[in-house]
């Protein structure tokens, strides 16, 4: 690779995306947007995996990302169904009002 971009650059970008995802999960009150921020976290992990795979010349990282994407699809389907069911019951998806399980 003749480029000046190293593994560290990719890892920093991935870490910044992960930090944005964490901040989104904590800041936002809307369950749907929290879910989107979680997807950002997953994608940050995917970017790190692909970067490691490329710079270590191992194809296993890409295979792991393939499985992560497949499982993320299943997870999103179930999670959104739960959010819709919650909305039908409570008429809100703001996590401030979904306090049934709070001590």
């Amino acid at each position, binding site marked *: 690779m003749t480029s000046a971009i190293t593994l560290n650059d990719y890892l920093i970008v991935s870490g910044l995306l992960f*930090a944005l995802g964490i901040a989104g999960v904590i800041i936002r*009150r809307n369950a749907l947007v929290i879910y989107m921020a979680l997807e*950002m976290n997953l994608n940050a992990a995917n970017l790190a995996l692909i970067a490691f795979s490329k710079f270590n010349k191992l194809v296993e990282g890409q295979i792991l990302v393939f499985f992560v*994407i497949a499982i993320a699809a299943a997870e999103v389907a179930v999670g959104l169904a*739960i959010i819709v069911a919650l909305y039908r019951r409570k008429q809100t998806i703001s996590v401030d009002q979904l306090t049934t399980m709070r001590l």
Partner: protein
Amino acid sequence: MYDILFWFFSIAMLVCGLLVIANRNPVASALFLVLLFVFLAGLFVLLEAFFIAAIQVLVYAGAIMVLFLFVIMLLDIKASERRKFRALGVVGGIAVAVAFVWELVIILTRPLKPLATGGDELSGGLEQVVKPLFANYMLPFEVTALLLLVAMIGVVLLSKRELK
């Protein structure tokens, strides 16, 4: 050229991520998330993971985000989204993110040495990724198929009747 594309995709992706969490309107958030996935696919292409980049656009930007948008349109979010952010949540969220980035910078300022355990240069094409998937990773592949089936049945069950 490679460097310019890397910085362009990275910065555009991070700006999109910021807009996802800063936007009041969930529809705008979802659309910026689609854009984020597309820029991330660009980064995957730069890393020569062409198959994963295609999957990223098809599954994430295509299927998952359509699901998100469907749910946003289905629920009447407008009324519940007028509230302001809580100060404690904003401060806490930013503090956690800054702490994470700080830790990351401490670790990554030392250069990492690649393990170089692999063999030849990775081409990341369809053949190189899919061959081990159907040879060494057959069982996880089948289990994933089963998992998707279970998730589908679960979704049908969840949306058919009220939660008890």
